[in-house]
């Protein structure tokens, strides 16, 4: 199997789908000739022509709004918002329009649309290149929200997202584009080419939206994580020696409650990790669901380790980022509670 970075896997997913399905079109800021500031669409314009992959004006509302119109026509747009931090101007189109089209028209008009956006910190991007807005999507009925953590998943999930008949928010942890990252920013980085998860089948394959994956089996405590935090959690488990079962959620909505519940019924403890700010983050929903489903099995309070309730700072990036030390502490405390 070819080895790919996450960028290559994402590009490959679009490539496969553009080749198979004339309805798939790709556009966004700088995605055409140049191929995107993270190079995710490099070469697609050359291969499929500029009416299937093109540069958009800098207007996120317009990008999503136009894509909704295209989707309702019958196309399957897969569009890029340059950074998740810049999705807010498009939020109305996403929430009030894309998410509700099928419902309000009783299925007459639908919106098969994928909105890709790089998310998360760890690249010294400051307040406006580091955000993780997933909870702002999971609150909205009609959307699905996906966060892949490796090249293999990224390709399989992105193809599934493009084939999905409904709007899918596809959040790409930019810190993982070129290799896994466990939060040890002072250590050398392993590229995907040296990691098994960089092995990605060529051609068409999908992973179902709504299925989590257990990335580490364990008996002591269940860790719920996604994106970059999957690796941070693994580092924390390794470093503390806590026998954690680590679940990579992959899709936040629909959520794989079956896998989550089975694990927590086994371990009796739960730590939730995400990079977004704490209050009303997706961890809140996870905690609420877990305590509801597993109340009588829980032996300790569910802990959340997250970004702080501040904007994402530039200089204090590693104070903000919920790294392995903080996650490790939560594991130990949860075991001791």
């Amino acid at each position: 199997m070819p080895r790919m970075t996450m960028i290559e896997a994402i590009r490959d997913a679009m490539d496969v789908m553009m080749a198979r399905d004339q309805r798939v079109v790709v556009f966004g800021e700088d995605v055409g000739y140049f191929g995107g500031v993270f190079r995710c669409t490099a070469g697609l314009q050359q291969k499929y022509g500029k009416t299937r992959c093109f540069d958009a004006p800098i207007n996120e509302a317009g990008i999503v709004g136009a894509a909704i119109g295209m989707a309702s026509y019958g196309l399957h747009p897969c569009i890029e918002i340059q950074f998740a931090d810049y999705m807010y101007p498009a939020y109305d189109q996403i929430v009030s329009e894309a998410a509700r089209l099928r419902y309000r028209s009783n299925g007459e008009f639908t919106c098969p649309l994928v909105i890709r956006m790089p998310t998360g910190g760890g690249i010294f991007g400051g307040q406006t290149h580091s955000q993780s807005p997933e909870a702002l999507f999971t609150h909205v009925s009609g959307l699905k929200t996906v966060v892949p953590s490796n090249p293999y998943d990224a390709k399989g999930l992105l193809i599934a997202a493009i084939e999905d008949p409904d709007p899918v928010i596809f959040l790409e942890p930019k810190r993982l584009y070129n290799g896994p990252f466990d939060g040890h920013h002072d250590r050398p980085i392993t590229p995907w080419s040296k990691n098994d998860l960089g092995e990605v089948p060529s051609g068409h394959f999908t992973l179902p939206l709504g299925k989590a994956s257990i990335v580490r089996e364990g008996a002591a405590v269940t860790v719920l994580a996604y994106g970059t935090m999957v690796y941070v959690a693994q580092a924390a488990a390794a470093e503390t020696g806590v026998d954690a079962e680590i679940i990579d959620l992959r899709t936040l909505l629909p959520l794989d409650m079956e896998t989550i519940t089975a694990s927590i019924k086994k371990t009796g403890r739960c730590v939730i990790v995400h990079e977004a700010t704490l209050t009303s983050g997706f961890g809140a929903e996870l905690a609420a669901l877990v305590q509801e489903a597993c109340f009588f099995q829980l032996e300790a309070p569910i802990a959340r380790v997250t970004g702080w309730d501040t904007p994402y700072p530039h200089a204090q990036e590693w104070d903000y980022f919920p790294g392995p030390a903080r996650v490790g502490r939560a594991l130990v405390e949860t075991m001791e509670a």
Partner: protein
Amino acid sequence: MTTYAPLTLHVPEPAVRPGGTPDFSNVKIPKAGAVPRPDIDVDPESIRDLAFSIIRVLNRNGEAAGPWAGLLTDEELVEGMRHMMTLRTFDARMLIAQRQGKTSFYMQHLGEEAISCAFRKALSPGDMNFPTYRQAGLLIADGYSMVDMMCQVYSNSRDPLKGRQLPVMYSSKEHGFFTISGNLATQYVQAVGWAMASAICNDTKVAAAWIGDGSTAESDFHAALVFASTYKAPVILNIVNNQWAISTFQGIARGGSGTFAARGLGFGIPSLRVDGNDYLAVYAVAKWAIERARLNLGPTLVEYVTYRVGAHSTSDDPSAYRPKTESDAWPLGDPIIRLKNHLIMRGAWSDERHKQAEAEILDTVIAAQKEAESYGTLHAGGKPSARDMFDGVYAEMPPHLRRQRQQAGV
């Protein structure tokens, strides 16, 4: 150093408020027939002045004049008048129904009937409108079932939208009528995207975007113009300037530009103004703009100058913010009366035939209403089920929604 006088904030005000005498002397109205009809592939720069004039066909005597006249047969005009009369009657009945508590809300078209009725006739099957809540004429003129419309208004058991939408927020793909959003302006740019899709697919369908004067202030309006201008999308960008946005006069949205059509000038988009109460003028301009789009010549922006005679909605009482008689003073008259006079002048119509048509139409609308009410009204009779509420959020119901539906016991 110069000393400067203190700055002051300019807050525009309408010429008259309740208690005052209506005054439209500031509305400059060119003679019918006076505005030229440019070639379809005209350079937008060369027709900038059309954004500051008003294209009119019907003059005060009911004659059709000038280069935009002569497109419609007597039969087509009679049909157009019937559409407008039907829409007005439909509105009148639904207004009463709302007052009787048969539904929660209604919005009428009084005075603006010509715009959507005439525009629809200029479109072809397969074209798509992205309407606001004040273009039901697009449905009426395309022969969409009034019963279905009323069932939607009543949110009853036969409501095509299963009670999910506010009254008048129709949807009919078959009739080229995109599902209406309650959010203003959002669909303007979707129309552009739909038109781009038609071009991407090398089809020949065109889109029509609709917006009100007040809503042009929304930012999505800009997004639409940027995308339409850049990709030369086959779309007609319609602005219905009915002078009011709820209680707010059009000067607040328009600001220092003389007109709303002027907004198109900054985008190199041909921008026309047309007498919105003149069925013939609306049809002619729509035809011109649609032809441009279909010939791949790109977008056209059209401002329809009209007046919202009724209240904004059943929740509104305009006497609180404008003189009660303002609509009587509106210089462009009533679209139905103007077309009627024209037809009579042409010898194709008479007062009796008009009265007869009125009666027939009323009967038809009442019959439709009876049928619709047999399927229920908002608070009585048949209604969509609570189960319908959980359907259609996604193509396939995800587990968490299934669980919620179970909890709801439906």
